């Protein structure tokens, strides 16, 4: 199958079952959301998919390849990029340098070629800088291009991190709470980018999100979790109406 397949994924540490027998499928080209209260195990799933953590059981396939046999730094080369719940940007570097850092695997020069600064190194450096500039422009970050991250507002940083993940040139993008800490306007803008990245760049997106309006607006399918278990998977509307979901998570919001 093209896309992401997660089968019977489990992880436990110290007697706590962070993820219990979670299965879901994300067809290529779709937008999939994972919702659930804090501590439900959503970020743990991302960490398992990207090999930051190792599951105690289960399978993860992406475009038919088993991801669990890979190391953390091999995930990007399989076409998967992610963002982080608490921004992991490089604070002293500028916006464009952060995006350029995301181009790492798109270079094919050896360290010897880089040390000697041969023509091929310069050619690839120029090509990747141009690509980083295109991403900066695409996300409307041009006026912040040369500003160090430390001087930027949080909402802009979220978009820069999105840009750095896009720089990897992924086929699957994992976004961990892209709208957390954003105001209504910024959230609208984020929704626009997520949809546009999905349709124009043809990138499959999985996002973890608490903002239900964003989830409803962008997602094709939604998975609701609680205490490491799957409550239900389905269309955004039906998941929101699911009684267990309402009880576990949405009670106050919907009723």
């Amino acid at each position: 199958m093209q896309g992401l397949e997660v089968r019977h994924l489990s992880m436990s540490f110290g007697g706590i079952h962070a993820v219990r027998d979670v299965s879901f499928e994300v067809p290529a080209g779709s937008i999939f959301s994972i919702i659930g209260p804090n501590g439900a195990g959503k970020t743990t799933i991302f960490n398992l998919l990207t090999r930051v953590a190792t599951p105690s059981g289960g399978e993860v396939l992406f475009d038919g390849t088993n991801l669990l046999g890979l190391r953390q730094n091999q995930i990007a080369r399989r076409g998967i990029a992610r963002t982080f719940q608490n921004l992991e940007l490089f604070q002293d570097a500028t916006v464009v340098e952060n995006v350029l850092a995301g181009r790492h695997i798109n270079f094919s020069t050896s360290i010897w070629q880089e040390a000697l600064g041969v023509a091929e190194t310069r050619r690839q450096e120029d090509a990747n800088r141009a690509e980083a500039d295109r991403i900066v422009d695409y996300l409307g970050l041009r006026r912040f291009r040369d500003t160090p991250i430390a001087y930027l507002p949080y909402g802009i940083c979220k978009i820069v991190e999105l840009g750095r993940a896009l720089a990897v040139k992924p086929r699957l993008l994992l976004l961990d709470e892209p709208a957390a800490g954003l105001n209504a306007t910024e959230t609208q803008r984020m929704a626009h980018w997520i949809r546009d990245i999905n349709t124009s760049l043809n990138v499959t997106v999985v996002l973890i999100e608490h903002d239900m309006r964003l989830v409803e607006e962008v997602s094709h399918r939604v998975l609701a979790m609680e205490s490491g278990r799957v409550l239900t998977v389905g269309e955004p509307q039906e998941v929101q109406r699911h009684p267990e979901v309402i009880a576990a998570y949405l009670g106050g919001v919907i009723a």
Partner: protein
Amino acid sequence: MVAQNTAPASRRSGQMLLLAVVAVLAAAGLPFLINSFFVGVVTSVLIWTIIGLGMVVLLGYSGQVSIGHSAFLAIGAYGHALLIGAGVPFFLSVPIVVAACLAVGALIALPSLRFSGVYLAMATLAFAFIVEAVIGDLDITGGRGGMPVPREKLFGYSLTQTNVLFYATLVLLVGTFLIARNLVRSRTGRAWASLRDSEVAAASMGVGIARYKTYAFAFSAATTALAGTLLAHKVGYLSPDGFTIQQSIEMLILVVIGGMGSLAGAFYGAAFLIILPILLSIVKDKVPSGMGELPGLEAGIFGAALIIFILFQPKGIDGAIRAVLARLKNGTGAGRDDHAGA
């Protein structure tokens, strides 16, 4: 569009290059302007700048701490002295020793990188103790008593001559600087800065953490060994006492005081490290009695300088110079551009 977007960076690097060329030319004229004592002092500064370049990469860019680099200085100095003693010419011996330390550095770094932080520092310390003990025990190195560095000629000129060693050092420093500059401006430099700031983010972008840490460690081992080969000619006589943990600590002092945000910090730190003791010895002669004879005066002043820099100028002399330059340009170009390069 590419050219337009990269214009500011290339213009800045063009200015830097011009500055560097002027500095090298001025340095090349030095032996005609100052007496040989000062040429010797400048040579020492340049040798320690070579060490500093490796330390800026290791500590400043990749964020790793070594307290055992005296071992590579020793391997460089002794290895080179033994090789030229065996009849290997200078410009063959230097690359052999440097390549050997590149490999040894990689071998040491790789297993200890599976652990993080303090374990690498401990492994390097242990390695330095082993090397020091071995050198002090071998017959070919003269044991604790040490060994003279064989006389060696370069293009017919004796390296015992101050000016000859000065020019050899200057050329090798320029070469090392260019390689270091190319590396920190390439994806390798960005990978180093990335893993220093956030290993999880770096790995998610495909950076092999252990691989790039090893590159940085091996590079610094190689530059330190290169400095060792030159130091051998500078001091003329090698003994284990010259390659102890004290030298390793001085290398750390060098980068902290010089500034580890850019390669230029290596030069400032080296100048501080070499010139301060000379100034102190001059001052000592002027002070009537007692004061100058205080034990540990030099170490105390280094320690105090270190604390003052860490507290008030954590970006070192390099950071201070950048801040002044930025103020002169009316506060433009704020921030440290270590992802952008030197």
